């Protein structure tokens, strides 16, 4: 497996008076093609971590290496071409006054000739299923649609990595599903690495690995199965657990013995089915 992102002993404090660092000695590496979910309670340093990866924030100490290139003032613009970022508020990242202008914004910045730009914008808009909205202004789009435009703006630049900085937090359930499905599909089609910072535990459960942040430190790394198997502990961290785990917890309280390992929704259905056919 090719390591695409490496963080080595990253520390960061916003201001000198701040006694508690936003990031405290964080190290990890991510392989190409992985879907990583970063979870953690509010103020645990998740967003700061995301901004560190694409150079919006410069770490006080430690090193960020992307695709073999260490992040520095000289390389930051090359690095940003490899890392696309979707932010939380869909309104505040829409630069252009129509969908196609916004998708083209990133391409304009890196000096792509206009003829190429037109096809790349069209392809990107098509990839997120927004073709019929290509001339619309942001005020006429729903939050989920705006986030899909933001994703189109990023895939037009053909990055290797997409960072979702709580990109679904401000969306309604429908918009959230649209965005997640779009990302999943594009990730498979283009072999992207996705880092998703999220409070939505069902979204995190779809990841290959989950990083748990707490008070600026990386507390735990594991597969969703490993992370959610701890159950009650994760609730104490101020996090939610996926629905099958909640159901398991309630069944246990009713005196029914449940398996210890984490079950996906399909796994839960199978297990329930078997349980009842035995009874």
């Amino acid at each position, binding site marked *: 497996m090719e390591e695409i992102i490496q963080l080595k002993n990253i520390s960061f404090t916003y201001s000198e008076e701040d006694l508690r660092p936003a990031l405290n000695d964080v190290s990890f590496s991510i392989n190409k093609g992985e879907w990583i979910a970063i979870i953690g309670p509010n103020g645990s340093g998740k967003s700061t971590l995301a*901004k560190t990866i*694409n150079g*919006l924030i410069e770490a006080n100490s430690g090193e960020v290496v992307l695709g073999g290139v260490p992040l520095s003032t000289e390389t930051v*613009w090359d690095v*940003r*071409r490899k*890392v*696309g*970022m979707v*932010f939380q*508020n869909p*309104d*505040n*990242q*829409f*630069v*252009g*006054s*129509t969908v*196609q*202008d916004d998708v*083209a*914004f*990133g*391409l*304009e*910045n*890196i*000096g*792509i*000739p*206009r003829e190429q*730009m*037109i096809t790349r*914008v069209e392809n990107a808009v098509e990839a997120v299923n927004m073709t019929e909205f290509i*001339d619309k*202004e*942001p*005020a006429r789009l729903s939050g989920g649609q705006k986030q899909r435009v*933001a994703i189109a*703006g*990023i895939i037009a*630049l053909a990055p290797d990595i997409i960072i979702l900085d709580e990109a679904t937090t401000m969306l309604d359930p429908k918009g959230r599903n649209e965005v997640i499905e779009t990302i999943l599909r594009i990730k498979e089609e283009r072999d992207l690495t996705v880092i998703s910072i999220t409070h939505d535990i069902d979204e995190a459960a779809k990841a290959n690995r989950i990083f748990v942040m707490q008070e600026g430190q990386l507390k735990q790394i594991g597969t969703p199965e490993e992370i959610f198997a701890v159950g009650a502990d994760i609730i104490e961290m101020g996090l939610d657990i996926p629905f099958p785990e909640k159901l398991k917890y309630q069944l246990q309280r009713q005196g029914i013995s449940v398996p210890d390992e984490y079950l996906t929704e399909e796994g839960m259905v199978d297990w329930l089915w078997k349980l009842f056919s035995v009874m």
Partner: protein
Amino acid sequence: MLEKMLFGRYIQGTSFVHKMDPRAKLIGAFYFIIIIFLANNWITYLAMAIFTFLCVFLSDIPIKVFINGVKPLIWLISFTVILQILFTTGGESYFSWGIIHITSFGLLNGAFIFMRFVLIIFMSTLLTLTTMPLSLTDAIESLLNPLKKWKVPVHEIALMLSIALRFVPTLMDEATKIMNAQRARGVDFGEGNIIQQMKSVTPILVPLFVSSFNRADELANAMEARGYQGGEGRTKFRLLDWQGRDNLAMAAFLLLTVLLIFLRT
């Protein structure tokens, strides 16, 4: 009240005026404001009015929209017109009391000034209604380009303008939301004496300022994350395309100027 504001609003369409080059429209609108001062009698004002209504007709936008655009400014217009009527001397006098004179000159001047206001508002409304904010800033950037020689930051000015225009509707929505939220907590807007009314603006302005700065910060982050490094080395997605119709429009303006010079007294 905010919904009635026409500023920065764009109505989609495929009419003659919509398809014009934004530079032509911008030059036209400014030029119109200059030549309206050439008009000084009934026939020239009539020519201007016919020209304006022709432009409005070519834009396929109902005249009602333009009349709504004039409404917020009606107080300013009436104030100026009334001052003209009351304090102009000369011509036949109808009524006189102290320094107040109502004369034929005054009435005529009042009518002309009313026409001038309305026509200028119509023309500038036409410009914003038929031109997307971004095309407008492209036009400004293109027209200001020669100023680069004198180190004027043309690209930065254009970007500032386009972001400002892009956020006008967003901030309007936000202002309405904040007003409603404060109303729900018991703030009365537009009631009490002038001091109280001014005080009641604070709970709108303070949150609006804070949220604007937050928006600016987030937008700057989003722009940088997408590789924005300033005007240098940037290509353009939108091309300005000067066509036959734009030459035609310019010719019409020229013709109008010649006509005005001949007809004015």
